[in-house]
């Protein structure tokens, strides 16, 4: 990748004014899709993503059912209007790959053995994309699964780190993704301390790699706290307000 301009200024500020350790603003609303069993809407910087969960429900076609556990089905999709140039609505190879890694990132957190012969469907729709949409999608999907009351071992939080101007920075945005040196999306279960998604494109030396992993994990821990707050807000929101009034 050829770099055309400085992405970090002399004060250590990035193109959107953040420091190297700062996440974009994250806002999660739980239960936005009324028909779904669980749902979440996430604004992750300029990303706007809705995630909806249906299930556990009957599997169609029936031969896909598994006798000992639940089938998890996952679709990551970008709306045609979500990008600068219109995106063909047909699923691209990129979206097929992301659907797969997203499913594999969520599956370790779910107790699928509790729902044999059933299916859980996770639909992630990117309405506006701004770099890091797979991380934002996983973060939202995980909350939607919790909202649907699926038995879970942990919440999956996701966040990317990367390299910009030879510096390791947290939460790569669209410009940094296209012009920067490396992008590493990570998904992490904070309580089990396990990594469920790790990808990298771009060049990192050994020290940068270790720093990048550590930074992304720290980011995931911050994201987790926001996820927890969003769930608390939906399920205990009024109660906390009541307590304060008393």
């Amino acid at each position, binding site marked *: 990748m050829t770099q055309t301009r400085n992405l970090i200024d002399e004060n250590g500020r990035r193109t959107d004014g953040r420091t190297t350790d700062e996440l974009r603003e994250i806002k999660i609303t739980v239960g936005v899709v009324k028909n779904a069993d669980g749902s979440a809407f996430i604004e992750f910087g300029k990303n706007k993503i809705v995630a909806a969960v249906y299930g556990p429900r009957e599997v169609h076609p029936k031969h896909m059912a598994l006798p000992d556990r639940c*089938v998890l089905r996952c679709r990551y999709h970008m709306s045609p209007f979500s990008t600068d140039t219109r995106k063909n609505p047909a699923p691209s190879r990129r979206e097929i790959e992301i659907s797969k890694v997203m499913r594999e990132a969520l599956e*370790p957190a779910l107790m*699928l053995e509790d729902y044999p012969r059933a299916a859980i469907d996770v639909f992630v729709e990117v309405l506006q994309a701004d770099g890091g949409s797979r991380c934002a999608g996983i973060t939202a999907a995980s909350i939607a699964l919790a909202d649907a009351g699926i038995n879970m071992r942990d919440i999956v939080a996701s966040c990317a780190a990367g390299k910009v101007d030879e510096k390791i920075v947290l939460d790569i945005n669209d410009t940094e993704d296209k012009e920067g040196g490396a992008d590493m999306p990570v998904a992490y279960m904070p309580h089990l301390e396990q*990594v469920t*998604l790790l990808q990298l494109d*771009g*060049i990192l030396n050994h020290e940068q790699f270790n720093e990048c992993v550590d930074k992304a994990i720290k980011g995931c821990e911050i994201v987790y706290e926001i996820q927890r707050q969003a769930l608390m807000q939906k399920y205990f929101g009024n109660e906390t307000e009541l307590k304060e009034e008393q």
Partner: protein
Amino acid sequence: MSSSKRSTIIVEHLRRQQMWDAISKGKRLDGRNLDDLRPLEIELDIIKKANGSAKVKLGNSEVIAGVKIETGEPFEGLENKGALILSAEVLPTASPYIEPGPPDEETIELARVVDRGIRESEMIDLDKLVLVPGKIVYTIFVDCSIINADGNLFDATSYAAVSALASSKVPIFEMQDDKVVHTGNNQDPPITTIPISITAIRIGEAVILDPTSEEEACMNARITITTNSNGDYTAIQKGSTGAFTIEQIKKAAETARIKGEEVRAKLKELTKDG
């Protein structure tokens, strides 16, 4: 839509138990140690009609890669770079469980991970493959066919693609009266580095390298790590439905550097004769 499915290869309980027992003693069912790779064989230039080709055998996994070099329009946004297009197909010859048809998500992931390893390492200097800036560039097709599948297709396919590219001859094209003409001469491709991928899987708490398909059927999680000639990381993909701890990932990354260097030396030695 991506869906969880049962493993196509069923490993019997007794066999699985044997595998776990062996791994707990630091051995594997085929006698290898946990971080041993299977024997690697590379045969070059087996397809004369291609501009470069390689057959790679990694244990019983067998992959043929062919390089075809043509000219065409550049990609949008990359007007002054040659185009690199990589595909992979698991042929119906590869195992009794493969059916002909459009690629499934695993094959798409395979092609994209191999492509990422080569593209992100900037193995080929695409800036040098421009004929008419902004209009006509060299287009390099790398097509990989998996002939026989016995695990670790990521590495086998990557070694085949890299060997075929490294040993290819680029036809020299010229513009004559606004037409692209082949001068009849060839040159070596602009190679900057040799990317090598190393795949590790976790079975229980053990991490083993270069898995067979039987081992893959028992895995919890998989990670493919590509390094370049400097020992820098250029691409990583975690796969499968389990997770890794941070320590396991950092250790796998270190191992990928060391083992990658061994494979790179071997690949360089084997491709030199071609």
